[in-house]
């Protein structure tokens, strides 16, 4: 089979259309550059009636939204999940890394939680504080101007609180708390745990003429048909196309490798068209990888040549190493004071209206690095699973559990909206021994060698999630609630989620000044090959207890500005 080469020479070939790829596509196309965006999944637009799940009722799905097919249920917009047919990955013995991929235009930005937190000054310089891991080669002051621009371009609600490590920004006003959130605020206050309005990228107010304003259906995980929440397709790629940008989208195209010339410089990418299963090549002056931390590492490691025998950008042997995810533990609590609720529409925005940023000093604790607390609850729309164990909470009142008959209708109403949940999301310490690498024994259905993961949490993370458990029990008690389920034992690692489960995997192509210990420089440019850049979360040196998307966006914008400048100066 001959590889089919496209005659078009692009200025930039971008691999991946999520947060990083979408931002790069917008900034570079707005500058007039000719851009190709290569996406492994199909075209997706939440305004397309055929792809919409927003405002659908549970009975429109024969399985009533059960998660048999989609990991987060039939109405979640992710095409993909932790397991994708024909696209396997493996783990070394005892390792259980779980790798979530969304194969669709916009990637995981179509269904993510929209929690949009800036990293703070301390987050870029963790080694200075606890001696662990490494500092970033850049600081908050380098990224701040881009965070500001991202806030204004995309829109994020929140409040300026003047907190030292949770910086202020350009916020839209937040929505009012819901009832269960008022209970959370009250409970947290008793333990001096701060609670502030959430910072999330939904438009509570108009930001431009193109995008709609939030209409409070609480379904951002289904992707918004009026583009009132941030998705890469709706907020970056489509607007860039609409304003005349030269963007060619290649959907259902799975990139195999970055191609290089005799000098070892990138010439473009080769990809498999999923429709005809043939291999194609695209040419570009610059290649921008935005395929996700692990996918970009995989592409680099699979891009072997005479000039790059260890994989592209991997002379340091660091590609794939320092992989890290957020820590996570969740508990739920039954709050008797939230029983017997009058029903009204409290859908609100998708997710929480309030949260707790990290509030303690690790110097006084037995673990490094902090966590934030996310809150959920309320009178949500029923879907598969609603009404299971209908009157289980009767046991807290010494009443009989179970039964049948019309009394169950009262039980359902009595307990509807009385459960509140906490999620702790913490910063882990990056480890060289936690990595992804190529598994030489396996390929995916496109013939591309797959990733093998090796990942163990350390005592730092175990102790941190144990502290989360203590906090959650204290909060439950403060609310007069009954915490549900048994506390996971020390042997069960205090209930810590498997790595990858929080879907914040970062660090596989980390940034640094030293080419021997890092993959990209502070402009996310490969040390080894000056016309290849990485704008997903691979370059993160450390993760912070902040969700990575806002930082991916800011850094992708910064890198795109750098690419434009370097092209103008004819340096690349």
């Amino acid at each position: 089979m001959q590889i089919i080469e496209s005659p078009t020479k692009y200025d930039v070939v971008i691999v991946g259309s999520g947060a990083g790829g979408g931002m790069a596509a917008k900034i570079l196309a707005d500058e007039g550059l000719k851009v190709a965006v290569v996406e492994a999944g199909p075209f997706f637009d939440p305004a397309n009636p055929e792809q919409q799940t927003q405002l659908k009722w549970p009975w429109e799905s024969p399985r009533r939204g059960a998660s048999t097919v989609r990991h987060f249920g039939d109405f979640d917009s992710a095409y993909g999940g932790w397991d994708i047919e024909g696209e396997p990955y493996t783990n070394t013995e005892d390792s259980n890394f779980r790798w979530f991929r969304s194969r669709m235009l916009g990637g995981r930005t179509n269904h993510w939680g929209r929690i949009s937190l800036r990293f703070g000054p301390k987050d870029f310089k963790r080694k200075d504080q606890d001696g662990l891991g490494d500092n970033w080669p850049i600081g908050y002051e380098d990224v701040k101007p881009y965070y500001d621009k991202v806030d204004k371009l995309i829109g994020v609600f929140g409040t300026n609180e003047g907190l030292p490590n949770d910086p202020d920004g350009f916020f839209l006003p937040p929505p009012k708390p819901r009832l269960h959130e008022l209970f959370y605020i009250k409970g947290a206050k008793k333990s001096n745990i701060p609670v502030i309005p959430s910072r999330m990228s939904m438009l509570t107010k108009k930001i431009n003429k193109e995008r709609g304003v939030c209409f409070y259906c609480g379904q951002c995980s289904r992707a918004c048909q009026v583009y009132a929440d941030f998705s890469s397709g709706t907020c970056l790629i489509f607007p860039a196309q609409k304003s005349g940008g030269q963007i060619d989208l290649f959907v259902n195209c799975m990139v195999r490798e970055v191609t290089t010339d005799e000098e070892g410089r990138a010439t473009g990418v080769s990809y498999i068209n999923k429709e005809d299963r043939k291999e194609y090549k695209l040419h570009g002056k610059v290649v921008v990888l935005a395929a996700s931390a692990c996918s970009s590492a995989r592409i680099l490691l699979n891009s072997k040549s005479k000039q790059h025998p260890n994989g592209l950008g991997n002379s340091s042997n660091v590609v794939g190493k320092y992989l890290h995810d957020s820590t996570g533990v969740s508990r739920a609590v039954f709050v008797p004071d939230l029983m017997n609720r009058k029903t009204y529409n409290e859908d609100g925005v998708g997710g929480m209206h309030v949260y707790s940023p990290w509030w303690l000093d690790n110097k006084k604790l037995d673990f490094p690095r902090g966590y934030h607390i996310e809150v959920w609850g309320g009178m949500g729309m029923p879907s598969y699973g609603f009404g299971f164990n209908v009157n289980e909470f009767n046991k807290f009142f010494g009443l009989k559990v179970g039964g049948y008959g019309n009394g169950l209708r009262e039980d359902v109403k009595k307990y509807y909206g009385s459960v509140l949940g906490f999620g702790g999301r913490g910063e882990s310490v990056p480890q060289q021994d936690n990595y992804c690498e190529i598994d030489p024994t396996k390929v995916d259905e496109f013939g591309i060698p797959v990733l093998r993961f090796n990942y163990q949490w350390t005592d730092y993370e175990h102790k941190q999630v144990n502290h989360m458990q203590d906090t959650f029990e204290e909060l439950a008690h403060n609310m007069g609630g009954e915490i549900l389920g048994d506390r996971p034992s020390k042997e069960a690692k205090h209930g810590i989620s498997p790595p990858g489960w929080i879907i914040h995997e970062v660090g596989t192509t980390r940034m640094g000044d030293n080419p021997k210990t890092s993959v990209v420089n502070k402009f996310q440019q490969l040390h080894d090959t000056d016309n290849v850049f990485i704008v997903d979360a691979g370059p993160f040196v450390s993760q912070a207890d902040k969700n990575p998307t806002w930082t991916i966006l800011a850094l992708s914008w910064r890198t795109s500005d750098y690419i434009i400048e370097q092209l103008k100066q004819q340096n690349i």
Partner: protein
Amino acid sequence: MDRRKSIKSIILGSVAGGLAMHGCKPEAEAAADGDALLTSEHHFGRTPEEKELIQELNAEQFFNVHELETLGVLCDLILPANAEFGSATDAGVPDFIEFMAKDIPEMQTDLRGGFMWLDHKCNTEFGTEFKTAAEEQQKQILDTIAYPDVEVPSEEHPLEIQFFSLIRNLTLTGYYTSKMGITDLGYKGNMPNVWDGVPDEVLAQHGVAYDPDWLAKCVDQSKRGIIAEWDEAGNLLT
């Protein structure tokens, strides 16, 4: 131009800016493919593969006639009609359970075995199958399996108790995810609206209040349509 093509042109026209997509099938071929499939049914965002799976499952039949009749009787014992709303079968619950048994095949043996247990028990006690027994006799049997000891982990209960818990779970979930059940529950959302806080009487009922300082930071919904502008310090001006 048929509906599917017109939708496609609307999307390409208004959003993607007339751009041609590469990499996928040639336009004509892609459009011809799914026409018959897509135009005749309502959409809830399924991919072509997901649609195919649903069609496959719908083409199969898991429960036989006797099992379906027994299921109907059982569902309505669990959730009979009341003055205002219909029963579980009125809300289509047996059809839903039939689908789920195919969608999650791990449940099949427990479901089928559970029905056999019910008939065996009823035949032994009353000399008749469960579905034709008198309601009092049916309830007598249910009373032995409907109240599990909560101190015992659910998977350690005898199968007949696990079976009944499973049927009760599926019946309630099927009912409360139906149009009738959602009306009965009083869920008021899933429609465009403007969230402006918890009603006062609800705050009073649950003994909580808004902090005025917090409220002052929240969105003024009368200005939601005005484009946001800030000063240099990030203070919202509009």
